[in-house]
């Protein structure tokens, strides 16, 4: 109401104030969305917390959460953490130079670059991961090439390395896009000013470009780390049946109908997700998430 009053006071005639009310009244447009998100985002999260903290008789318990210390579950969580940290680091190392080069080339439109990175998604994600079996397996593409040069064969399929490769492959675009989007927005004058003041390439990068690109780096890291940590598909396809990640454990619990256990273990995962979301929001205040794409 306050805003409305102010608007009315500032306008010259009653007709105009009516129209300004209209401009201000677009708020109702968000109601369907608010109802939708409450019903399908907030309520589900409350429910998963409820399931995670109760047993089959609806009694309160921490048992589902402490199950994470069970040796199998603990190993699955640690392995998932290890592999996802590795794949996030590799993605960052690959994506940052790529984003810098793409930024330099000044393609006619940046939507073209986005398209090139999104286009692979039109080939189903499971199929693309299965194709890596062809590349990595004993008589696969890589070993054929190695054999051609009389080099010893590599044994990658069904190892943690294969899973890391699958993660890097699937999530690399999510690292490139945010970094690229931040880099193109860096004011050229700031970079030129640094050079005018005598900074060399290295100094310009360390003192100007990298700090300014940090929001993109952080959002890239979360967007790679979270899906890597929680995947069960990549480990199923490229890890054989022997390597179990925390995602596989949770998926299996739900397949077996142990919803309370599955929810409890998901809550443990959510602690890591919330942690990375908190870091992201610390760096992401200004842009309000719009730099993701």
């Amino acid at each position, binding site marked *: 109401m306050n805003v409305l009053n102010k608007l009315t006071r500032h306008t010259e005639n009653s007709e105009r104030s009516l129209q300004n009310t209209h401009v201000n009244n677009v708020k109702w447009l968000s109601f369907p969305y608010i109802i939708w998100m409450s019903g399908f985002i907030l309520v589900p999260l409350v429910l998963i917390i409820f399931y995670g903290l109760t047993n089959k008789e609806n009694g309160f318990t921490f048992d589902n959460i402490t199950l994470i210390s069970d040796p199998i579950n603990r190993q699955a969580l640690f392995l998932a953490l290890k592999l996802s940290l590795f794949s996030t680091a590799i993605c960052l190392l690959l994506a940052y130079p790529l984003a810098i080069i793409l930024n330099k080339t000044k393609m006619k439109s940046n939507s073209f670059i986005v398209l090139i990175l999104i286009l692979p998604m039109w080939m189903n994600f499971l199929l693309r991961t299965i194709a890596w079996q062809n590349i990595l397996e004993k008589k696969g593409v890589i070993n054929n090439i190695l054999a051609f040069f009389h080099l010893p064969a590599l044994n990658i399929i069904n190892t943690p390395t294969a899973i890391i490769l699958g993660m890097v492959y699937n999530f690399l675009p999510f690292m490139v896009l945010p970094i690229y989007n931040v880099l193109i927005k860096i004011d050229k004058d700031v970079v030129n000013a640094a050079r005018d003041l005598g900074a060399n390439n290295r100094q310009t990068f360390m003192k100007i470009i990298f700090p300014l690109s940090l929001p993109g780096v952080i959002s890239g890291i979360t967007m790679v780390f979270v899906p890597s940590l929680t995947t069960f598909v990549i480990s199923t396809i490229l890890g054989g049946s022997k390597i179990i990640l925390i995602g596989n454990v949770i998926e299996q619990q739900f397949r077996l109908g142990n919803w309370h256990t599955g929810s409890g273990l998901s809550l443990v995962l959510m602690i890591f997700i919330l942690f990375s979301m908190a870091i992201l929001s610390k760096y992401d205040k200004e842009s309000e998430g*719009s730099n993701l794409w």
Partner: protein
Amino acid sequence: MVKKFVERSYIALILIFLYAPIGILIVLSFNASKSRAKWGGFTFHWYQELFHNEAIMSALTTTLIIALSSAFIATVLGTAAAIAMNGMNKTPRTILMSITNIPMLNADIVTGISLMLVFVALKFTLGFTSVLLSHITFNIPYVILSVMPKLRQLNPHTFEAAQDLGASPLYAFFKVILPDIFPGVLSGFFLAFTMSLDDFVITHFTKGPEINTLSTKIYTEVRKGIKPEIYALSTIMFITVLLLLVLINRRGTEKKVPLRKV
């Protein structure tokens, strides 16, 4: 010169990395041998078989219907929400944006499980509708994040000017605001459609036993071996999109030429 060569090669290597699996899948779709592991000669057989395979065709129909309708509904809801949020004060807008970010940042497995728990709690039979509702839910944020930057660039006075000149708010919206933000709306729709098409995890948890999308159909075949018809279908889909994009890009550049001359 050397630096440029290194940069070009780096882009090329990354593109090979991203597109090699796709090349392999296309090759497999022409492989006469049923096994993924060996090459049995060139054939179009799987492309003919594809249209007689009812299970795959029905999975394709379900996938396309869900992707199209979820992207459309998400675009309408998301665009409306973005417009409303753009006009809000900072605090409510920040709260809404944080909620918007949840499905994007949360793990798919958690989103999928939590949605399933809601449907079950509401005694809602898992099936087509539950998948559609879930896809709309994770699609809306992509639309909002695509539309929001365009709204920021918008001159707020054009909308008022249109109304001063006698346009109704609705008319002014369609004539003044929508054309300006349309590129964002379109890319939001396209992104939502792609995400829905490529989703497996959330569909896996919310679909129930009755229906299959292409993703879930492929997942059931991971262990026993993928049917070559699926490779053929994905090749067709991929090539179609590729051609469409090339066409759109061509038209885009042709349009720009006369403008430059003026």
